[in-house]
């Protein structure tokens, strides 16, 4: 047998000229096992054909390194994971720094506060030199400003240069103004006194605001890392190594990045499946909960697909790798969830418009507040009052909460959806799903299993059921017809003993014949028996009519020229369908069914699952038309389908839900993909969407109400009526709490779990 070669592409680092390329090429060509190596200087790539029995990607890299050059790691998911790890590390470091800055500010603010209050006790004031006390406070405040609060100032300045204003602008201008005023009052108190103003200082305000805003940031950062916890958990599921069977039969553990297409991999009980592939040998039960949300293990046998990151339970098997890296199911899911977290929900548009103009507008309001207070307040108090209100407006109007309201909720809920096998393509789909009032189900494959199953096994009078089943199964085991497979599956579930059939012959369009235990057996449609000259007894005929009346396909069985039984076959309804439909109806949603079947079958299935309205005999090309018909009635339609022919209808619907193992085309056209073939997923998707939108609305309400009420109060609107002013420190506390409360509200979505019947 000719040895198979593999091709590897490496990204080469450090080549400066064409001769470097030929140097690398030579080094590679001399490596044992390499049959051909080509190095392109312009693209910095090396393409190498090699014998996997003699060389591995690692030895190839080593050859490049030996030549004095480097290899850039290219495996897409590895670099993504590395990048993520680096980002995580940087974030962790930023968090530590932030906490340090927060503690410095807090400790100093705790010292500054009581010292500033000394003036409240006249007895104390008499003993302390005001001027010296102010200088002392100044010295304590400078580290708060320059160390703890420096980021606000640099960020505000950088933003200013870009004509962009952000929350830091507000904090910097607010605390900066309070500090500069205090500095002037400390250094030249005489200037103030001569104008009849007490030279008051606001060092406590400056320090406390910075400490409180930093507290808000610390809490915010902590909560924010939790919003993407679900997706991180998903990424962390990937197996780190795989046990590859080498062509010589040797089993070797290799890092997952080195696994290649068509490798044979062994999975033992309790191990994770390394990547996607097809089972070649063995059988087992595999826990696929991480991909589908289904908690029951799935039986797998030769020929069945397995997916990376799922957990092998009982048996041991070998599978052939069909997908690696970014192509695997897990990577696709992670990518989809990441994409959806990057999208914008339409509900966010208003908040976006507001936040774009927010900061400069607030700065203008703050300036006008200052002018009004200065002009209207009594002369001796006008400067301090104008200043305090100016600062309060700036600090309370921080738009953090507004900016966090939607994205945090979307992040938590898309992650949560993935956990339950509901993949949401984008935020718009999530938002659309909560408005749905009509769910249109394509019958085959959604309500029903989409494959025929034996529903009735009817032996003729005087026949032994168990024995007849053995005989029938013996014949059908040799056939590849879908109906025959259904019969074999049925026999297996009944644990019918396996016996042999000889002389099997398929009869096109009619059925099959074979010989079992020396008896001639015929299984097929009525025509098969009719043409063989076998007549049916009136009892058998009556039973057949009954099955046909229930819209079932009937298989007739004859032995030795005598009709001995009937098998009723139909596409069966999934166990969960009726309950899920009831649940949808309970949520106020009308469930409508469509099918290509005749009205009789349609009525039968609809009745079984409690659907009142259905469309029968719908041609695949007309499916989208039915969606339009419902939309014309003013309904918001969710379409659920699983096949390529459903794609136009999925796209036409207000929201399309592609169901489990759905084709790529269907997934492409759908806003939501359900990983599991189960209508319960539709319920989960709509419930999740409703809960998410509710959370977003609460968040936006809190953020808007907070700013719309907060700003006028801070500006002093209540002062003429109630003599109430908002202290800038209180404003800082409220501002810190607002974004934390919005985040906490979003995090409540983490406790979402779909209602089960």
């Amino acid at each position, binding site marked *: 047998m000719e040895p198979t070669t593999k091709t590897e592409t490496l990204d080469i680092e450090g080549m400066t000229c064409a001769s470097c390329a030929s140097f690398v090429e030579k080094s590679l060509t001399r490596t044992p096992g390499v049959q051909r190596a080509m190095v392109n200087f312009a693209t910095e790539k090396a393409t190498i054909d090699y014998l996997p029995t003699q060389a591995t990607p690692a030895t190839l890299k080593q050859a490049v390194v030996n030549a004095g050059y480097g290899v850039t790691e290219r495996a897409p998911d590895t670099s993504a994971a590395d990048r993520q790890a680096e980002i995580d590390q940087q974030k962790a470091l930023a968090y530590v720094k932030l906490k340090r800055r927060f503690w410095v500010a807090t400790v100093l603010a705790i010292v500054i506060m009581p010292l500033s209050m000394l003036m409240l006790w006249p007895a104390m004031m008499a003993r302390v030199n005001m001027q010296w006390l102010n200088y002392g406070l100044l010295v304590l405040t400078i580290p708060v400003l320059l160390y703890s609060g420096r980021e606000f100032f640099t960020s505000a300045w950088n933003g200013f240069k870009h004509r*962009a204003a952000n929350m830091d602008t507000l904090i910097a201008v607010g605390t900066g103004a309070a500090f500069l005023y205090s500095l002037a009052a400390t250094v030249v108190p005489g200037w103030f006194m001569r104008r009849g103003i007490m030279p008051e200082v606001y060092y406590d305000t400056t320090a406390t605001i910075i400490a409180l805003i930093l507290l808000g940031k610390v809490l915010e950062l902590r909560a924010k890392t939790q919003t993407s916890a679900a997706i991180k958990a998903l990424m962390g599921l990937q197996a780190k190594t795989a046990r590859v069977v080498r062509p010589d039969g040797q089993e070797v553990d290799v890092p997952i990045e080195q696994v290649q297409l068509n490798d044979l991999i062994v999975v033992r009980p309790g191990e994770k499946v390394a990547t996607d592939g097809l089972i070649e040998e063995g059988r087992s039960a595999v826990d696929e909960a991480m991909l589908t949300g289904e908690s029951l293990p799935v039986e797998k046998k030769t020929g069945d697909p397995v997916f990376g990151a799922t957990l092998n339970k009982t048996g041991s098997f070998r599978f052939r790798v069909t997908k690696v890296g970014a192509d695997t199911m897990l990577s696709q899911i992670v990518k989809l969830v990441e994409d959806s977290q990057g999208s914008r929900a339409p509900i966010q548009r208003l908040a976006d418009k507001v936040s774009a103009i927010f900061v400069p507008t607030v700065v203008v309001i703050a300036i006008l507040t200052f002018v009004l207070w200065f002009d209207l307040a009594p002369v001796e108090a006008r400067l301090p009052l104008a200043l305090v209100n100016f600062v309060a407006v700036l600090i309370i109007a921080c738009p953090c909460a507004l900016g966090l309201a939607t994205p945090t909720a979307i992040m938590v809920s898309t992650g949560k959806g993935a956990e339950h096998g509901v993949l949401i393509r984008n935020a718009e789909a999530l938002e659309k799903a909560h408005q749905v009032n009509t769910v249109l189900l394509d019958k085959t494959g959604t309500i029903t299993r989409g494959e025929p199953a034996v529903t009735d096994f009817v032996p003729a009078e005087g026949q032994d059921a168990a024995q007849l089943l053995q005989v029938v199964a013996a014949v059908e085991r040799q056939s590849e017809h879908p109906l025959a497979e259904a019969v074999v599956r049925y026999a297996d579930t009944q644990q019918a003993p396996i016996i042999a059939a000889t002389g099997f012959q398929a009869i096109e369009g009619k059925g099959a014949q074979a010989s079992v235990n020396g008896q001639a057996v015929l299984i097929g449609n009525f025509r098969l028996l009719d043409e063989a000259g076998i007549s049916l007894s009136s009892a058998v005929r009556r039973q057949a009519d009954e099955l046909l009346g229930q819209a079932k396909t009937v298989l007739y069985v004859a032995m030795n020229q005598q009709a001995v039984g009937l098998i009723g076959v139909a596409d069966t309804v999934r166990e969960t369908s009726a309950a899920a439909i009831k649940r949808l109806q309970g949520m106020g949603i009308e469930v409508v069914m469509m099918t290509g079947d005749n009205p009789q079958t349609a009525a039968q299935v609809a009745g079984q699952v409690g659907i009142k309205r259905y469309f029968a005999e719908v041609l695949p090309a007309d499916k989208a038309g039915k969606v339009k018909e419902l939309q014309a009635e003013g309904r918001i339609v969710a379409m659920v389908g699983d096949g390529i022919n459903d794609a136009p209808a999925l796209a036409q619907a207000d929201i399309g839900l592609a169901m489990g193992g759905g084709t790529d085309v269907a997934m492409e056209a759908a806003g939501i993909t359900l990983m599991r073939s189960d209508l319960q997923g539709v319920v989960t998707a709509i419930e999740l969407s409703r809960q998410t939108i509710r959370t977003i609305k609460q968040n936006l309400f809190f953020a808007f109400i907070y700013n719309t009420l907060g700003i006028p109060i801070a500006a002093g609107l209540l002062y003429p009526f109630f003599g109430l002013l908002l202290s800038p420190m209180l404003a800082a506390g409220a501002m810190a709490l607002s974004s934390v409360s919005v985040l906490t509200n979003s995090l409540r979505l983490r406790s979402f779990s779909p209602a089960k019947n």
Partner: protein
Amino acid sequence: MDTTEIIVTLTGLALSAFVIWYFFFSARQTASAVSTASGVQEVDITVKGGYSPDVIEVERGKPVQLSFYRDEENSCSEELLMPDFSIRRDLPAFKTTLVELLPQQAGTFTFTCGMGMLRGSLVVK
């Protein structure tokens, strides 16, 4: 109204006018993408208190590669959002992050920081 009040009022109004003009009406920094031999439109963007350049012109139907270099540690700019292209990226400080996309429709697409404060736009022609 005394003289001080008049001065404060006029200064306040002038400052307000400046803020409105400076943040809303002043000219933006525009840059066009540079096409490489392989047909990729490349643009380098520095992130520091904002995006420079913040208006980027590209051609429709050709792949675009945006290199974001984040030249600060301030947390405001740590996330990049391009909602029209379903992109959310963390921008590590003092590192270049590549963002690739294929604009298929003409129009103006906004990109922002995580909270929508810092803004830029991709103009597809």
